[in-house]
């Protein structure tokens, strides 16, 4: 009897362990996936893909040498099968996959890799992506028009390419995952000329079919995709600028997945019909108020500290965006390198600091915001919070172009802006914020730690260095008051399976998505 019980428990355990495997549904091929975007895409040419929308779309048509992995958040092989790193992180030799074809049947070789990087640094191309690979030898000469080709990118044979860097760069592989590193073919670029940005031809999982600007972009599965074809036959992206129309299209069953507008989140998350089909992802973003020390009295660290105390990011987040996370430093949720520095939020302390700095009666401060609805709302709360400690805020609202022009030229005393990750590493945030020309912040200690971060490939060391920078910035009167980190809630139709969501916009190739056709038919009856 005892043995039978043991046996029964054993089988039960085995069943429980195997049940996820046994119960996993088998993915189906076929069908059209209907998705949407709130704006049209500026370009589909990787060399110009400076925005998220363009980058997110370019990765559907093109592949890079490496890519971000959904599960491990690590850089894994893509068009490169393997690589060796030698000479103190300065030489990267990539062994490429053979038998990979561009959508028109042209074979992918090392020459395409060389051409992609030469093109990126061709001054006539004027790519906005030249900031990504300045560490490759020969980029400066190429940009100056002294050379047509990068000396640091060498074709060894058809399936081997070598990159030589000026100095060690720990994040080189990570930088290769950016859309600017997506591989294009010279003949295809020449064939389409100036219209190449409208006719993407890459090695990616989807082939371009049609693009009606401001209306829809259609792609179909690349049957010969080297990593196996996508499950869906087609993807139709519709351009729907108005979030409420977009969500109405979803409710009518015309979209398979969409972003829930912020104002609607509460209702959807509490809706029993939909709550199981909602996924919320923490974005890699940081929203902040920047203080420009070229303007008095912001040059006084005590005044900057006082402003930090006066602004309670927790209060802002709770009152305006209950689904976001209040920021205590530059590093967003889900990214290593952040600290447990406390959110200050102490009006009395702020007043004390202002009095110590000689501004007991406060002062006037111009805060620049863009004319987006969120910016204006946040600006209003900042105005109220700073008003409590005697700082009279003049909100200067302008459209994005004027706003950014002013901020970029260092003419805004204070401004509300955000940083969104190009890749998931704290260096991307800290370097962008503490070495910008928008504010005159220049701390030698931070700069030298950033230099260290550039070189090291040790992720633990990078995390420690990141924390160190945040600590030093705190000590010297941080020019940034961090406000909040955003998140996005997606809702999908019940018939959509295999849907993966990733924090990095450039990682989503829709390879795992599939449509349960029977379930869809059942729902639509």
């Amino acid at each position, binding site marked *: 009897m005892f043995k039978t019980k043991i046996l029964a428990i054993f089988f039960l355990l085995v069943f429980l362990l195997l049940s996820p495997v046994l119960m996993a549904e088998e993915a189906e091929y076929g069908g059209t996936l209907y998705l949407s975007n709130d*704006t*049209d895409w*500026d*370009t589909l*040419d990787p060399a*110009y893909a*400076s*925005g998220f929308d363009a980058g997110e779309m370019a990765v559907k048509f093109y592949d890079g040498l490496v890519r971000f992995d959904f599960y491990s958040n690590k850089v894994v092989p893509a068009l490169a099968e393997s690589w060796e790193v030698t000479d103190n992180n300065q030489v990267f030799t990539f062994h490429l996959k053979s038998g990979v074809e561009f959508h028109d049947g042209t074979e992918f070789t090392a020459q395409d890799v060389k051409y992609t990087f030469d093109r990126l640094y061709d*001054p*006539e191309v*004027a790519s*906005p992506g*030249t*900031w990504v690979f300045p560490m490759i030898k020969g980029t400066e000469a190429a*940009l100056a028009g002294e050379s047509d080709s990068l000396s640091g990118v060498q074709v060894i044979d058809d399936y081997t390419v070598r990159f030589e860097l000026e100095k060690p760069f720990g994040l080189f592989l990570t930088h290769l995952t950016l859309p600017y590193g997506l591989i294009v073919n010279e003949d295809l670029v020449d064939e389409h000329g*100036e*219209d190449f*940005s*409208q006719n993407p031809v890459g090695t990616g999982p989807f082939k371009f079919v049609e693009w*009606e*600007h*401001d*209306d*829809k972009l259609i792609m179909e599965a690349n049957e010969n995709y080297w990593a196996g074809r996508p499950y869906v036959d087609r993807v139709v992206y*519709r*351009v*729907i*600028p*108005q979030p*409420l*129309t977009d969500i*109405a*299209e979803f*409710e*009518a069953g*015309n979209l398979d997945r969409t972003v829930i507008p912020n104002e609607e989140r509460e209702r959807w998350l509490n809706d029993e019909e939909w709550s199981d089909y909602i996924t919320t992802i923490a974005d890699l973003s940081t929203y902040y108020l920047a203080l420009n020390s070229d303007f008095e009295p912001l040059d006084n660290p005590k005044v900057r500290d006082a402003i930090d105390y006066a602004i309670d990011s927790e209060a802002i987040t709770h009152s305006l965006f209950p689904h976001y996370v209040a920021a205590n430093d530059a590093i967003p949720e889900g990214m290593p390198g952040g600290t447990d520095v406390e959110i200050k939020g102490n009006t009395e302390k702020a007043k004390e600091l202002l009095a110590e700095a000689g501004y007991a009666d406060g002062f006037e401060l111009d805060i620049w915001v863009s004319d987006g609805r969120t910016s204006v709302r946040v600006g209003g709360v900042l105005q109220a919070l700073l008003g409590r400690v005697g700082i009279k805020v003049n909100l200067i609202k302008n*459209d*994005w*172009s*004027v706003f*950014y*022009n002013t901020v*970029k030229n260092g003419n805004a005393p204070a401004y509300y802006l955000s*940083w969104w990750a*190009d890749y998931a590493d704290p260096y991307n945030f800290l370097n*962008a914020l503490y070495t910008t*020309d928008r504010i005159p912040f220049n701390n030698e200690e931070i700069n030298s730690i950033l230099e260290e971060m550039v070189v090291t490939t040790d992720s633990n060391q990078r995390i420690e260095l990141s924390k160190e920078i945040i600590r030093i910035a705190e000590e010297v009167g941080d020019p940034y008051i961090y406000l909040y980190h955003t998140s996005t809630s997606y809702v999908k139709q019940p018939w959509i399976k295999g849907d993966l969501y990733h924090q990095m916009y450039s990682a989503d190739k829709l390879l795992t998505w599939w449509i349960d056709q029977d379930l869809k038919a059942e729902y639509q009856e």
Partner: protein
Amino acid sequence: MTQYIIRRLLLIIPVLLGVLFLTFVLMYLVPGDPVLTMLGQHAEDDIIQRLRAELNLDAPWYSQFFSYLTRTLKGDLGRSYISRVEVTEALKQKLPNTFKLALAAIIVSTIMGIAIGVISAVFKNTWIDHLAMTFALFFISTPVFWFGMLLIYFFSMTLGWTPVSGMGEGSFNLKHLILPAITLGSRFAAFLARYTRSIMLEVISEDYIRTARSKGLKENVVILKHGLRNAMIPIVTVVGMNFASLLNGSVLTETIFAWPGFGRYLVTAIKKRDFQVIAGCVWVGALIFVFVNLIVDIFYVMLDPRISYD
């Protein structure tokens, strides 16, 4: 008549040159920079300078103006700074979409507006008149955005009669046109109803209407043939002007219904300071406006034989 048309056509030239010049000056003076929009927050100064040179934005204003003028006069509207799509190609896509929407809206609003206006005038100060004018006031005061969303909620979401948004498959899809046309046309229909009513009230009190009635003509003949025809000249002017402005795009309606038209294209370009697109759109918009006006003037002759341009 032919001479009149030739004279009007010749007059279009200085008007369009003026439009070209004013557009250029405005774009030149307005703050903001397309290069910064293109490059995003990573923009480095040398890249900004290089791209400005590439786009000829660093040249002196007169040199930029003359190259813009000569290209435009040759019919080359250039390429968008941002998307690098030829503006002419983009307009070939957007204009037919806007034309469909504007035409549908003007048909709906003209029929509704004139009919309600005439009925109101005929039944002056009765409950029919009061009801019609209350509705007219309601539609004039209704924000387009709210009304469009309301129509989507009621007809698309609740009743499922019409699609939510977009243009649908194929070159013409009537079902997709209904809600945007009603949204776009409702305000003008209301305005036209009030306008037609007041014009008709004036006309009905004229002596020739009394004469027509005294001749024993049927009331509908008096109203439609003698009354409405004489009221048509100011009505046609208003309809024509409104049609021309609808052809220049209707940003709100196009945004609510994800309609890929001229208005959205222009407003997006303004936000991004995409000067080539702005210039191309304003130039084509002015051209449309001027030609529609000319056509309206020619219509007058057909409506009223007493008008002669010779």
